């Protein structure tokens, strides 16, 4: 009788909870302890706004902790590799736009360079430099999105809205160069379709003056921000060995401390003419990824400045009439141009047979093109080495034992782009 009384008494006693604000009864506490021993399943995605794309993760949770996760991908698979086997070379450029759509010019030029390697075409210096300028602008816009969205996921919206104005400026430069903004379809096999206009030059100049101030301000908002650092330091860390084992490339690998950058390891498009650093991190965590991307933006600016100052004069495309689409007015007025135009469009040009692998440093890693040509009008086989498809498989390993909210910011700091992942 006495025992029973004691039990009820204890149950009705009120204990202060950890934060001292809400109170909790002993019976409630017992209930909580019991329920914590049971795992539950949480379906994160596919259309959760914090996943920035269509990703599904079925998480096994113990309270707020993730025990295991099973990712499902492929929601926006568009069969690019099959499509590419049925299109002439120059019609594949718009497909590459839709891989990593945050930095589509890099993909476009990567594809053009792959075909140029197959054809054995040398680019004039001016084309290389123009490509470098645009590719580095694209890298800035890619990293800018990733870093500012990471801030959004930690709850800081204003920085994101602020730097997006700068992304708009980059898109205006694209627009001036090729007419499109997001899916750029920029340039052609053999160079550019037109020279840099005076307006484009002015816009790039303005950007180079304006952007450093903005990025500096953005960094001063976040880089040493106590709340931001507490939130992301040590979250979603990956060691260098594990990163290499999982095929990491790009900023994510460099954040883990490996100084691998395709621009330096196998230089393309005259990258060896420029002086720039490869920033590396130490711990491979979310904060390091943030810092590496920030530092890369400064280095990209450095490259653009050098390329812009030393921009050589000369033609904006290689002299390869068999592969480079002639300007429209020449097609109408010049017999030879008309013939070449017809031959290129009807794909009656001779293409060497062989296998080519070419890779570029994309926004989020090594973007590779493995092209098998049988001499026909279309590639016999085209395989895209899509960096985030390969490194996203480490995600379950990276978030194991972490909190759910950490899983969200780990994903956004990895810069996983659904379009590229699903191919």
């Amino acid at each position, binding site marked *: 009788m006495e025992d029973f009384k004691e039990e009820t008494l204890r149950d009705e006693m009120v204990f202060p909870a950890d934060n001292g604000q809400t109170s909790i009864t002993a019976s409630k506490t017992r209930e909580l302890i019991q329920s914590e021993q049971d795992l539950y399943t949480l379906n994160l995605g596919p259309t959760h706004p914090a996943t920035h794309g269509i990703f599904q993760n079925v998480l096994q949770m113990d309270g707020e902790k993730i025990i295991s996760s099973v990712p499902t991908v492929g929601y926006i698979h568009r069969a690019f590799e099959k499509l590419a086997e049925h299109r002439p070379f120059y019609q594949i450029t718009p497909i590459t736009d839709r891989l990593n759509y945050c930095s589509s010019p890099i993909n476009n030029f990567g594809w053009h360079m792959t075909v140029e390697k197959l054809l054995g075409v040398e680019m004039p210096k001016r084309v290389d430099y123009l490509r470098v300028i645009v590719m580095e602008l694209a890298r800035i816009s890619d990293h800018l999105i990733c870093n500012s969205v990471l801030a959004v996921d930690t709850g800081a919206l204003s920085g994101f809205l602020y730097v997006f104005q700068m992304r708009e400026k980059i898109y205006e430069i694209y627009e001036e160069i090729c007419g499109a903004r997001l899916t750029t379809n920029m340039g052609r096999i053999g160079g550019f379709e037109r020279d840099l206009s005076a307006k484009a030059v002015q816009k790039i100049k303005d950007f180079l003056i304006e952007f450093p101030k903005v990025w500096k301000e953005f960094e001063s908002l976040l880089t040493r921000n106590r709340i931001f650092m507490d939130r992301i330091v040590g979250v979603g860390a990956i060691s260098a060995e594990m990163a290499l084992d999982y095929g990491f490339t790009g900023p994510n690998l460099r954040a883990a401390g490996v100084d691998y950058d395709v621009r330096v390891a196998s230089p393309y498009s005259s990258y060896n003419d420029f002086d720039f650093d490869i920033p590396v991190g130490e711990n491979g965590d979310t904060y390091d990824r943030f810092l590496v991307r920030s530092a890369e933006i400064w280095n990209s600016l450095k490259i653009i400045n050098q390329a812009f100052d030393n921009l050589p004069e000369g033609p904006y495309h290689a002299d390869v009439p068999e592969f480079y689409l002639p300007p429209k007015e020449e097609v109408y007025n010049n017999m030879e141009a008309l013939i070449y135009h017809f031959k290129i469009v009807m794909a009656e040009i001779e293409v060497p047979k062989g296998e080519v692998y070419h890779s570029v440093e994309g926004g989020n890693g090594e973007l590779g093109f493995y092209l098998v040509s049988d001499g026909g009008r279309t590639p016999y086989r085209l395989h895209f*080495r899509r960096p985030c498809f390969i490194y996203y498989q480490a995600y379950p390993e990276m978030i194991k034992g972490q909190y759910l909210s950490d899983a969200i910011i780990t994903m956004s700091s990895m810069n996983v782009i659904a379009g590229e992942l699903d191919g």
Partner: protein
Amino acid sequence: MIKLTSEEILSRIQSAFTEGIVEAYESFGMLTVVFKREINIELLSFLKQDKDLNFHFLTDLCAVHYPDRENEEMGMIYHLHNFFTGTRIRLECFFPIADPTIRTIIPLWNSANWQERETFDFYGVIFEGHPDLRRIVNVDEMDYFPQLKQYPLEDAVREDKNDAMFGR
């Protein structure tokens, strides 16, 4: 670290593997070695662990379908990379589509996991020893391997489109 030439790399491979190497050639600046599928793990782990070769990074793996090559319809292509010297190597092996099996290389690189699943998804290559060999980007109910050359680009059962004009 000294950068090895293609000939030196090849002679090392040939001295380690007396059997199983079919041919080797250079294609657009990349050494390409064709081997028999029976030695895929041994060859790749030799390339990964040999101190001088040190091809420690698996860049890419994919399959290619050549329906016209008898008994060698299916090709597996591996790209390896040595970051330190900046050397790349391509490894190829061919086998009949009637028996599209090859051993998984996940023990060497975890990054092969999804790439092998993708190859299975599109080409039907069976990777022996793969822990989770199921479709990755296509729907689970799909009952064919769409990247094989016999399948047209668009769904063959569709009747609402006439593509005769475009030669597809």
